């Protein structure tokens, strides 16, 4: 859907935007989805995005930066026990670590794709991660209008790297993450 209506903007570097432009997050229009194997099934759900700071440099992608705070304590899952297990002491331990944070260390754009290197902190443990995706315009927006953008980034973590290894005999180690964020240019 997004792909059909949108055109990647990072590729459209124009000299008008020579410095990073700040965006703020539309928290209601943004969320992080996760999915992980559960036997022959899957556990999936969403985590609210609490806060994000986005600065995009359309001329020099590498000048761009993103930092995101997700509310792990507000996570949902496709069945109630999974949400409780996810937040429980042996996985995200949200009683002690209510948030998951991510911040970029490098930003690359090539062709229609963007690649973001960053550091993600889960359960108080910080590890490098690479997310891939892009920026899209919303349906009906004029080409060249960058006042509102959609960010889609995907990646994966091995939860054992963060000590979030509870229920490892039942639930997979590799967790797929998809960030969908709606950002609005600071006027």
């Amino acid at each position, binding site marked *: 859907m997004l792909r059909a209506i949108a055109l990647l903007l990072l590729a459209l570097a124009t000299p008008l935007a020579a410095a990073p432009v700040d965006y703020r997050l539309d928290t209601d229009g943004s969320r992080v989805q996760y999915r992980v194997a*559960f*036997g*022959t*099934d899957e556990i999936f759900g969403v985590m609210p995005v609490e806060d994000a700071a986005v600065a995009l440099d359309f001329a020099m992608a590498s000048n761009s930066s993103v930092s995101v705070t997700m509310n792990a304590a507000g996570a949902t899952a496709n*069945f*109630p*026990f999974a949400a*409780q*297990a996810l*937040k*429980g*002491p*042996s996985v995200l*331990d949200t*009683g002690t670590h209510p948030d998951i944070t991510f911040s970029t260390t490098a930003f690359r754009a090539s062709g229609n794709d963007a690649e973001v290197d960053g550091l993600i902190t889960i359960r108080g443990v910080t590890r490098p991660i690479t997310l891939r995706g892009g920026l899209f315009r919303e349906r009906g927006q004029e080409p060249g209008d960058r006042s509102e953008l959609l960010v889609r980034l995907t990646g994966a973590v091995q939860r054992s790297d963060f000590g979030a290894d*509870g229920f490892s*005999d*039942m639930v997979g180690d590799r967790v797929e993450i998809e960030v969908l964020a709606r950002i609005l240019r600071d006027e």
Partner: protein
Amino acid sequence: MSAANDTDGFGWVSRTIHWAMALGVIGALGFGTYIARMEVNLSNLWMFAAHKTVGITLLALLVLRVVWHLVSRPPEPLPAAPWKSAVARWAHRAFYLLLLAVPLSGWVASSATGIDTVVFGRWTLPAIAPASEAWEEAGFAVHSVLTKLLALLILLHIAGAVTRRDGTLRRMIAGRAA
């Protein structure tokens, strides 16, 4: 047939509780071992809830059994060699301890996972341990070890019951030794 125990035999209340718990405990041992090893997915997740329901029911039956035996004392064991009587007495005491500690350890471990303990598909039991990985691991380790001890004790108990030819088994089935 009398409900109460007397000096010669077991009333039907004690016998019913004994056999209901025997069935439930042996079932829970097998079923617990199965669920701890199966590949869990959405379609068999209910089995954990079923095991907890059976386990909590057994805990309730234990409380009932203890109260009933305070109200209505069970008969003295039939005469036997002193060492046999001593083994039987200690085995029965160990049963009471294990039948308390096994479900409690399961409940402690389940509470420590941070997941609600729901029995009979509707009642959420209070958590009796903090949500903590250390409690969870220790709780399940204790649950696992104690259930093995319980299984061994049952084997010993059955061996005793079926090898005694003095009416002991009949007394637990029919109420009277002869």
